[in-house]
């Protein structure tokens, strides 16, 4: 309620600068846009700022002589951030940082390879295609926590996985096996996502291009690397970017499948969760912010490096192809980045 007051009040207090412009239209635009901006402010901006503010405070850490927690929060500046990198918590942080990065790189690579393969299969016209498509997409439709429970069942000491390989591997114990179980479950669940987006990309490739390739005598591999891959690349990059942003925040799968406080699979989100569940919201917000920055940097680099690449290739491929298309393509990637970074941020703020 208080937030709406400045909206109506402000234009009147600052009239001189705006007089040169079409004032009526400008005011109307501001009025029309303000509800949207207000909503955005409430659901995106406010959580971010509130989380940033929270990360500079600590509360509830001291007891008075009667054994009661001293109320109120104290401003500690950047201490919460510095603590993340210091001593024992520092070791824990870098371990979680390594795990997060490891899962992101390994899972996304595997998912991309499998996802593209799935898309190629789904795009083919053959009998029973509907069933194949549906069954490939089933894992994506299952909520992560449920799929984690399913895989937990499979990876039990006396579960199917151990029966199949004929030895007893304790999957949820510390070590490479718990990492592997997370990679398997994550790949199983989200390769179809990449498959789905790539399939959409494949369907926009006109059949004539392939016919032309055939006429030119290109073999299947050449057709794939020279035609399919470049043309599907924009869609693929968006899919991969989504997956990277998602996997950097990975939480529920290791949490449910392997468990809390396991060094082998502890990720940055789990650290933030752990702090928050021990009612230390300041440090929790600091962890979430560090994760947010990490995600934002990775997303930025991804768009910067691979996005530029897309344009370079597009120019070589289609000399007359038009600037408009190129521009739009680049913007599409950026838009999705912004959207997902916003989602990440609000997710982080939600902690």
């Amino acid at each position, binding site marked *: 309620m208080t937030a709406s007051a400045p909206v109506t009040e402000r234009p009147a207090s600052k009239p001189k600068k*705006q007089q040169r412009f079409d004032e009526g239209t400008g005011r109307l635009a501001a009025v029309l846009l303000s509800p949207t901006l207000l909503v955005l402010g409430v659901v995106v901006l*406010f959580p971010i700022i*509130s989380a940033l503010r929270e990360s500079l405070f600590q509360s509830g850490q001291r007891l008075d002589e009667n*054994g*009661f927690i001293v109320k109120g929060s104290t401003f500690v500046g950047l201490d919460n951030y510095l603590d993340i990198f210091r001593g024992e918590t520092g070791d824990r942080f870098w371990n979680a940082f390594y795990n997060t990065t490891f899962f992101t790189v390994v899972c996304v690579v595997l998912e991309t390879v499998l996802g593209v393969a799935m898309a190629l299969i789904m795009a083919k016209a053959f009998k029973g295609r509907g069933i194949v498509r549906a069954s490939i997409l089933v894992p994506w439709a299952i909520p992560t926590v449920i799929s984690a429970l399913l895989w937990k069942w499979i990876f039990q000491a006396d579960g199917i996985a151990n029966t199949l390989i004929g030895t007893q591997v304790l999957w949820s114990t510390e070590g490479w096996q718990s990492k592997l179980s997370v990679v398997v479950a994550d790949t199983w669940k989200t390769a179809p996502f990449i498959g789905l987006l790539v399939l959409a990309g494949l369907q926009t490739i006109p059949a004539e291009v392939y016919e032309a390739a055939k006429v030119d005598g290109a073999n299947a591999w050449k057709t794939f690397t020279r035609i399919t891959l470049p043309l599907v690349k924009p869609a693929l990059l968006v899919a991969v970017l989504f997956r990277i942003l998602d996997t950097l925040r990975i939480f529920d799968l290791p949490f449910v499948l392997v*468990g809390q406080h396991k060094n082998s699979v502890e990720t940055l989100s789990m650290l933030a969760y752990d702090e928050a569940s021990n*009612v230390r919201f300041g440090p929790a917000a600091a962890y979430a912010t560090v994760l947010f920055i990490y995600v934002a940097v990775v997303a930025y680099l991804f768009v910067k490096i691979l996005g530029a690449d897309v344009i370079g290739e597009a120019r070589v491929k289609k000399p007359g192809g038009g600037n408009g298309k190129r521009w739009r393509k680049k913007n599409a990637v950026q838009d999705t980045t912004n959207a997902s970074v916003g989602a990440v941020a609000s997710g982080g703020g939600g902690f």
Partner: protein
Amino acid sequence: MRFERSHARRTAFVAVASSFALLATACGSGDDGSSGGGGSSAAALEGRGPITLASGKDTSGNLQNQLNAWNASHPNEKVELKELPEDANAQRQQMIQNAQAQSDAFSVLSMDVVWTSEFAANQWVTPIPEDKVPDLGKLIPATVETAKYRDKLYGVPVTSDGGLLYYRKDLLTKAGIAEPPKTWDEMLADCQKVAALPEAKGMSCYAGQYEKYEGLTVNFAEAVNSAGGVIVDKDGKPNVNTPEAKAGLEELVNGFKVGAIPKAAHTYKEEEGRRAFQEGKLLFHRNWPYVYAKAQATDGSSKVAGKFAVAALPGKTGPGVSSLGGHDYAISSFAKNKATALDFINFMASEERQKANIEKTSQAPSWASLYDDATLNKQFPYLAPLKASIGNAQPRPRVVKYGDVTSAIQSAAYDALNGTVAPDKALADLQTKLQTLITN
């Protein structure tokens, strides 16, 4: 172009302005929250009217019946059940959120016994004068201890829980053993005798819960306490780096080393262990009373129905010491109608209600004399050993930062059981860690 620029500036301004306004309100409410909490808990337990009970998902299905009994006799002070998730952590989180918002949505909180210190220290729950709970002396003393923080009562135990030793009576009898083991050495000796039997092929001696979660804290505390050690002493100081605690931990470590405890037990929570016992893979198994009905099921789900019995946990030189489970009912500091809430808690803790509850749900009562009830003992043959278990039980460390303390204990115990850290070092490290977590 020009229009666009002014428009952009303007919208940016609106966005910033509104966010500042929001920020200001956020700060305001935050400051309110930090200063206002203290006074309310000192207030007397006054006010009558409708109340609520916040409790984890009622898997027994009987809780509403209990509430109906209250509502029938108190039409103007009805209690409404606010059902929280089944997961204990999620329950705790919702209760904390409720307290931080200073909401009166929850009047009576069904607290897990290990939350008492944290909730009391934060003044999220209100102290209950002991003379306002007339039946307090009738409840098992160990369970009442769980509801205290710094010698003040903050709740009333309504249910309890203790560890039991499930054992294969059929195999023990066959091996010529008449009595269940009282000590760990006896248990291992019994295992050796039973191992000679052809039926014991592929069986392991013993298992509890050793996955890295709350159950590991329970099992570690039981091992340490049963060997005469403590994790946190009577004055609330950590004292886990002792020969006694080491003896307790080594008992488990050696169990894994010599294969008495199967390797798979590293992944056991309650359910995994129960399944192993039901499939006839374990001779001895430490678990809670709820397993009894499931293992006794004759629908084919259990291979050990009719073949097992229960006893109190074994210890180093005599009976073991169980960790305590169960729930205490406490009054939220921010609740209205606290007088009604207190009456309701007394009602729920009464002998009549606790008896009605165990008859329907098999949840362990906190009312001492119910364990000696002949009819109930017939219905639940584990009541006698359970009484011994709970009567001799110790609460888990009663500390404000329980979440941190329990994860430190889990880390130390998990590494020691895995063999990655020697027991001495694990305990020394744990002691250091606990000293930083338990400051006064």
